[in-house]
């Protein structure tokens, strides 16, 4: 297989002995793994195994009781969700979490929000950021300046908006959702919603992209498309991807490294081939019927 | 607008939280106008026409009413709400519409030099407050005895309710009684805390400056805590049948201020009943209000308007009077005891006389008491402490004039 030849960078994210409890329920118990740069990393496991919870821990929505997360070399503590986004982690959700009242374009554009710091603010960062004395005055002034430009939709702000619009359009082109640009996402069928959600995450130009069952509820053709997008993102932008998926075909084909969770514990880890041959994994997750399918292959 | 009719807009509130008080007030005015038309064919041969506009005691609606109706030949309005009055005062001279607030409104507007278009005839809240103190003094056996007494004012937390505070505070400094102020928020259904404070303070007298449901609840709570009812005096807007009847027996002995007699035992009122209601020309269901306190007050309001109109007709030799003429009529309103008798209201009210500087007419105040069935007058006419009140009014009016670039008239 081709992907076995793929090479990866350093560890981007290290998960160390994470334990997460909700009251009496242990969602994750003592799980560790590393995600390397440019890897496509898959987390699989039966329902309720703690996969989604793991992603939530990674992007700061849940705070584990024990263990540490090291991202880009920094060990982090009690991080707020929006801070995770600021460090370049984007994600999609198992139950689609789009902004239902907005159009596709607007949803994708929200992904650009972090990048739209405003022209005055950028100027501030260039000129003043390391001059603490005048910070207290300039920061609010710059912020307010941007705010005024925004509200007048004028000059540099307009140019910035258009630049980001262009970036958003690129994502839209890439995902081939041009024709629903102006449709409110609440009206879209499920599969397209997933795609828009991916678009929103891509618009953030993340370093680490977390995908929670991106292909659920899609038929073969759509899954193929989706896989294509995932692989392209990985190839073209070098984005590291961590995904959860129940379709074994997809996982086996596109992932470089797989972690298997069961009842919150890690029961196996390795290349897809290693994992799918693991008896524990077959018992806990794949089931007998699938085993045949896979062997056949 | 036919040439021989005089038009009056009536701002009423027959709906909303203050409707129970608004209905008899509005009826009093309308019934009297109706009566004048039926009995005398109008004033000086000019038929009166009036149009009701529902304000619900809401300023914005009142403003809408005013703007909509002012062009129809309006010469004088009766806003029947403190809020609307305040809003209309700055417009009055521009629109040439007089504002007649009978026993309410903006007290300092009785300084006719600064407020030529506003009339607080026959008396004001400040006068009334001073009259109450006088009455209490008399009950205690002399003004000197007030020293060290405790008086509590329970008031509606609004412009209206706050009107007497300045006066009462000033008098407290002068006379040495202790004043406790207790505000009650609209609508005033819940006054537990207020009356707990009364229980703690144990004042000798309670003055009630309430409006709407607040009055009934206050009276009930007072009986509940066993406060002596005859030591509780309400403002004249807290002393109508509507305020006491729903409380059952609780209100027996409760007193309230007024500036006119109570009941329907006057030739005019009997005649109105006969001419208007017995002939089936009254407001449907309105006969039960005739002779009630608020109805009587509405009638007084209407009488002031028609008397002013009459005076203006005579002075200017016209039939239908315009805004400026009406204003003159109000400013020179002079209803003597004989005139009251002529109207069929002998002993109903003291004479009223306005002057250029004084739009208050200096009407004295009466105290009435509820005996469980009806209101009875229990005092003589008490003249307010003019020497205290008038300087207050003038000072306040002067401040208003200064702020608004008004040069006071010379009177």
């Amino acid at each position: 297989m081709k992907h076995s030849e793929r090479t990866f960078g350093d560890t981007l994210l290290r998960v160390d002995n994470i334990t997460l409890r909700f009251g009496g329920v242990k969602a994750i118990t003592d799980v560790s793994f590393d995600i390397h740069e440019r890897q496509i990393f898959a987390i699989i496991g039966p329902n309720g195994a703690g996969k989604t919870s793991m992603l939530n821990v990674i992007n700061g929505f849940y705070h584990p009781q024990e263990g540490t997360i090291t991202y880009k070399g920094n060990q982090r503590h009690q991080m707020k969700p929006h801070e995770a986004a600021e460090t370049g982690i984007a994600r999609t959700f198992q139950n689609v979490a789009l902004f239902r009242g907005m159009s596709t374009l607007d949803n994708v554009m929200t992904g650009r929000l972090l990048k739209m710091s405003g022209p005055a603010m950028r100027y501030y960062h260039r000129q003043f950021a390391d001059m603490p004395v005048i910070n207290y005055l300039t920061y609010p002034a710059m912020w307010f300046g941007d705010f005024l430009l925004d509200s007048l939709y004028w000059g540099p702000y307009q140019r910035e908006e258009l630049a980001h619009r262009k970036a958003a359009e690129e994502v839209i082109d890439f995902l081939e959702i041009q024709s629903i640009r102006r449709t409110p996402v609440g009206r879209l069928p499920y599969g397209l919603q997933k795609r828009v959600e991916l678009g929103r995450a891509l618009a953030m130009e993340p370093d680490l992209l977390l995908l929670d069952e991106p292909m659920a509820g899609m038929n073969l053709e759509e899954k193929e498309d989706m896989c294509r997008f995932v692989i392209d993102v990985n190839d073209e932008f070098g984005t590291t991807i961590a995904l959860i998926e129940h379709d074994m075909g997809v996982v086996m084909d596109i992932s470089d490294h797989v972690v298997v969770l069961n009842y919150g514990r890690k029961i196996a880890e390795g290349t897809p081939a290693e994992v799918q041959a693991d008896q524990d994994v077959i018992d806990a997750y794949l089931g007998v019927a699938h085993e045949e399918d896979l062997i056949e292959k | 607008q036919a040439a021989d009719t005089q038009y009056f807009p009536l701002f009423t509130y027959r709906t909303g939280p203050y409707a129970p008080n608004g209905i008899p007030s509005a009826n009093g005015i309308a019934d009297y106008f109706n009566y004048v038309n039926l009995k005398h064919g109008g004033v000086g041969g000019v038929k009166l026409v009036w149009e009701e506009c529902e304000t619900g005691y809401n300023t914005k609606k009142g403003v809408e009413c005013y703007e909509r109706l002012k062009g129809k030949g309006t010469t004088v309005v009766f806003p029947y709400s403190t809020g609307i009055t305040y809003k209309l005062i700055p417009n009055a001279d521009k629109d040439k519409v007089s504002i007649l607030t009978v026993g309410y409104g903006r007290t300092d507007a009785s300084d006719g030099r600064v407020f030529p278009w506003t009339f607080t005839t026959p008396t004001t809240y400040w006068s009334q407050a001073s009259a109450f103190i006088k009455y209490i003094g008399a009950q205690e056996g002399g003004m000197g005895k007030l020293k060290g007494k405790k008086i509590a004012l329970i008031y509606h937390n609004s412009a209206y309710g706050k009107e007497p505070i300045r006066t009462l505070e000033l008098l407290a400094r002068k006379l040495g009684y202790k004043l406790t102020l207790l505000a009650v928020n609209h609508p005033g259904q819940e006054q537990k805390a207020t009356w707990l404070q009364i229980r703690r303070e144990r004042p000798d007298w309670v003055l009630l400056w309430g409006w709407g449901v607040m009055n009934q609840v206050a009276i009930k709570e007072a009986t509940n805590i066993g406060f002596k009812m005859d030591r509780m005096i309400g403002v004249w807007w807290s002393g109508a049948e509507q305020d006491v009847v729903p409380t059952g027996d609780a209100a027996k002995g409760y007193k309230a201020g007024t500036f006119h007699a109570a009941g329907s035992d006057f030739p005019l009122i009997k005649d109105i009943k006969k001419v208007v209601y017995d002939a089936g020309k009254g407001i449907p269901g309105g006969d039960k209000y005739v002779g009630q306190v608020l109805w009587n007050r509405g009638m007084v309001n209407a009488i002031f308007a028609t008397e002013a109109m009459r005076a203006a007709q005579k002075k200017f030799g016209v039939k239908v009077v315009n805004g400026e003429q009406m204003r003159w009529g109000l400013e020179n309103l002079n209803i003597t005891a004989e005139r009251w008798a002529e109207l069929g209201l002998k002993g109903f009210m003291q004479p009223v006389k306005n002057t250029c500087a004084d739009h208050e007419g200096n009407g004295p105040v009466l105290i009435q008491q509820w005996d469980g069935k009806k209101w009875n007058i229990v005092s003589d006419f008490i003249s307010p402490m003019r020497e205290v009140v008038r300087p207050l009014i003038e000072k306040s009016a002067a401040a208003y004039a200064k702020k608004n670039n008004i040069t006071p008239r010379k009177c």
Partner: protein
Amino acid sequence: MSEAAATNGANGAAEALLSVNNIEVIYDHVILVLKGVSLEVPRGGIVALLGANGAGKTTTLKSISNLLGAERGDVTKGSILYDGIPVQSLDPNDLVRRGVIQVMEGRHCFPHLTVDENLLTGAYTRRDGGGAIRESMDMVYEYFPRLKERRSALAGYISGGEQQMCAIGRALMSNPSTMLLDEPSMGLAPQLVEEIFEIVKRLNEQEGVSILLAEQNTNMALRYADYGYILESGRVVMDGEAKDLAENEDVKEFYLGVAGENRKSFRDVKHYKRRKRWLA
């Protein structure tokens, strides 16, 4: 799968339990979604409804269970008959009482109710006493042991797959005679997908429950169904025996892929622009 049912499905109206005749559905007064869909579910049959995203599968199911009104959708043309009675004249709860139950797409559990309570609401229309209901509940928990472990958790907190089980279990609790399943396998682990279809089959064979199944997992759906309809942008573009459909070239190309030896890896799928049929 019963031979009889299959034939019934194929040849006709006589034994149709549910028949949808040429319906048109408009959302929000302006968005035309179904443009004349007709289909039939024979008594005791399993019928699969296939189609790309946005083809109108969910809409079709909702118009059958009469839940469209709640989404400001309207069936403007055509008719839907269940057991000979026009569905439009029945309340959704009447339908449930008559045994038609829908498993809604997107795991509509009641988030503030525990799993137990969720299941019990499924039995809301049942009149056969607490004992029988307990029994059904035990049966559901037997199907989904994972759910049993989380039985006292609020449904809003359980995992996506667990919610899906909860929604299916809830439908099973009502002792249905006809089930409308909207993507039941979504988000379930492979083992469980198998299990779900086994359950469906068992219900169908043992209890004679008729099934209308909207599914993306075409392989599975066609393996278990008797008859299939393929929906595309609001129209039925193809229908036939499940077996025949599975053999059809187009269906293979778009929905099934090639199984076995020649199966293409997802990694190798060429990135060529296909005709985007769901955007039609």
